[in-house]
């Protein structure tokens, strides 16, 4: 089937609600665009094989829900991720401002500290831009992230974003080589978080 694949990489797409995370993914995996795409509930998952510098890598891409109400589900998705695509909407400054929170969350839940981060300013096809390219670049540099501006609608920069990210991951020693074996402790999803949905009321834990 895919014997020539070098490795499988776990990529996470995060960012505020409505910045176009799912659109970027669909453009990348299916090369489609739906302007009326419904909000993601929980998480979406796609697999795509990509070739970078002659190396084939299989990407397991987790597209998370940006809405606050599904946040309680996200922490488990961060586990074992090697790359993360952090998306904001260049026409909405608030999505840019909130990047700090996302970085904070990433730091909190990510299981490795050498994870490769790519900052994507989406929707550059739109005219009412609120965040300047340089601002994005500056922020990316400050937090040692890769940076690109893209448009899922016009296909601008989408492919590039994923490729650059994968390239960087493959260049990063130790991030993927020993990956084929399960590293470290595998926490079973089943025990953890049972009844962790909330502390109030106090009765869920008993059911």
């Amino acid at each position, binding site marked *: 089937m895919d014997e020539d694949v070098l*490795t499988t990489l776990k990529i996470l797409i995060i960012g505020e609600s409505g910045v176009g995370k799912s659109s970027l993914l669909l453009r990348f995996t299916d090369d489609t665009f739906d302007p009326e795409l419904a909000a993601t*509930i929980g998480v979406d998952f796609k697999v795509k094989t990509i070739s970078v510098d002659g190396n084939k890598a299989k990407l397991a891409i987790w597209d998370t829900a940006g809405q606050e109400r599904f946040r309680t589900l996200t922490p488990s998705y961060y586990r074992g991720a090697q790359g993360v695509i952090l998306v904001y909407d260049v026409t909405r400054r608030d999505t840019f401002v909130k990047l700090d929170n996302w970085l904070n969350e990433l730091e909190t839940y990510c299981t490795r500290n050498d994870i490769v981060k790519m900052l994507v300013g989406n929707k550059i096809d739109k005219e009412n831009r609120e965040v300047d390219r340089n601002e994005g670049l500056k922020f990316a540099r400050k937090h040692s992230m890769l940076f690109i501006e893209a448009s899922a609608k016009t296909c601008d920069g989408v492919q590039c974003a994923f490729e650059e990210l994968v390239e960087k991951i493959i260049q990063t020693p130790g991030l993927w080589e020993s990956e084929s074996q*399960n590293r470290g402790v595998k926490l079973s999803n089943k025990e953890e978080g049972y009844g962790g*949905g909330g502390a*109030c009321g*106090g*009765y869920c834990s008993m*059911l």
Partner: protein
Amino acid sequence: MAAPAGSLVAAVLAHSGRLDKEDLGTRIGRLSRRVEELKGEVCNMINKKYNEFLPSMQSAEDLVSQVDGLSSNIDLLKAGIENEVQRDLNVAVADFTELKQQLERDTLVLSILKKLQEFDTAIKEYNTALLEKKYVAAAQQLEKARNSLKMLESRKGFELKILKALGTELTVQTQNMLYHLGEEWQTLAVWKLPPSKESSSLESAMHSELHLRTVPSKEEEIAGPPVASVLQAFAVLGELHAKLKIFGQLLLKYILKPLISYPSLQPFTEEQSDVFILRFKSTEPNLDHSSPMEVFDKIKLIFEVLHKYLLNVPLEQPVEDKKECRVTLAELLGDMIWEELSDCLIQNCLVNSIPTNSSKLEQYIEVIKSTEEFEKALKNMQFLKGDTTDLLKYARNVNSHFANKKCQDVIVAARNLMTSEIHNTVKITPDSGVALPRLPDPGAGDHLKMQTTSKLLHNDMVNLENKTKLSQYTFSLPTCRISSSVEKLMELAYQTLLEATASTDQCCIQLFYCVRNIFQLFYDVVPTYHKENLQKLPQLAAIHHNNCMYIAHHLLTLGHQFRYRLTNILCDGAATFVDLVPGFRRLGMECFLAQMRVQKGEILERLSSARNFSNMDDEENYCAANKAIRQVLHQLKRLGKVWQDVLPVNVYCKAMGTLLNTALSEIVTRIAALEDISAEDADRLYSLCRTMVEEGPQVFTPLPEDDKNKKYQEEVPVYVQKWMTFKELMIILQANLQEIVDQWADGKGPLAAEFSAAEVKSLIRALFQNTERRAAALAKIK
């Protein structure tokens, strides 16, 4: 010199010998003379003895014998004389004794005759006095006669027949006298009583009348006021007590008690020529209970009338030996009826006058004052002894009575609320705090206070989160439904505490503990009283859960809100309800948890009839599984409906999510355990699972407005822990080997997040035939 010196010894020796010789001669001469002298003396002595002493001795002895003879003669003579005299003396003594006894007997007889005469005179005088209607004198005479008779009877040994006859006569006369007195008494104080004895209604009380004769008839004027003489005569005869007792009983039963019991009854006096009439008239009955002041006035009027026309009469006619009677006549009556009267006053009048509201408590001082005056007036009329203060004591103790009454009322009201239906509900929103009484503290509202504290907390500790303010509702109870009875219960608690703030210390403490008792009562009464319903009906369990949380929520701040308004004793942190909070939370939680367990058990039991989801290609098996799933969904739907709008939204979602999760995880476990799943099985299992995934979220309807529930239906993955697992299982049931491997994605896909490698492998083996492709796929799952 030498010679004399040497011959001294010889001289001495020579001298001594010579001396001896000379000396002896003189000595013998002297001795001889002495012997001569002795000879003369002895001779003299002997002469004297024998010639002079012995003869006189002889004569003395003779004399002694003569004296002895004489004395024996005297003795004989004396004995003779004594015998003679004694005999005569005895005779004389006997004579005198006899004479004396005679004398005594005579005196006795004389005194008896005198007494008899006295008795006779007394009876005679009595008769004339009686005829003249001088009752006092007659009674005194009778008493005199009685004394005489008593004296006569006290002498023993004189069993005169006449005494018996006299006794009979005296009794007859006494009875006669009493009869006359009775007659007089009945004309003096005439009772007109209602016909039927047992009825004590207002109408029958209206028929009671008391006529007191005021002016004596003309011919009796000389005898003085008849009332006085009659009563004194009774007193003399010892019958006054009994008469007054009867009078007192009648007075109590037909006049005083009706006056206390029926507020519309008014005493009404009428003075005719020689008669004073006391009767009742009825006014508009406007109140259930008349005020103590009115009752006191009425009773005072009665006693004044009695005092004026009946009981004070002896006062004006002092008779020395009736002093006692004079001072105690009113007192006597008072003694007899006061205990009963004061009890009656307290039970029927003062008890009702105790205010139910502390604001009226201050006005009660008037009742206390009038009580004091009432007792004083009665004391002036000597109905009461100086130290009697039963009523006043009771009235002065009004604070304690008030608190007791109040607490009792509050507890009774609280208990009624607790035993009323749970399912009558009201909706509580974070803004519904206004339903509670506004406290008089300047600008320290419930919410405001909380906000400031939360802000403080915020600034001190959580500086990480810039200056964002917490929502106004952060500490509010979420919107939900509670029993209206519980809302009322809480209002009752607030009202009672408010009442406590306006009360005296003692009362305040009592009311405060009364409020605590309400909650302790709730803790004990509600789970027991409604036990069956709480177990049977999930909606009631939810409401009860809310009720408990609502109460706990208020208990958190209840103490603080009243902290500075309660009495000092309670200010030192004693006035708290916080200690009750965990208990109430537990109470609500346990009830709801028990209900959840029941529901969970039902879900599992329904799924157990799905035949393990095996061999779905068998039509019967499929039907059973389908039915089981339908039943589970129906049960969830019903629960979703009865909890709708009742549970707070987040609790609702958690509860429903937990139950749906129970169903999903059971299905996952059963399917994952299957060893062989044919293509048709897989299709049917998939369609069953799809039913769950499509219809499961539909049961999440926390709000009555259907369009607002979509949000919660979307969030089902958040509340149902196994949701993703279930979705992954569905993907596997429909996927080919490549798709499964992709979903696994080297352990980085979502399939790996939900299932273990062993589980996935087992599923692959069950779903696919043993081929090389399968082996290759299995090799990738690790």
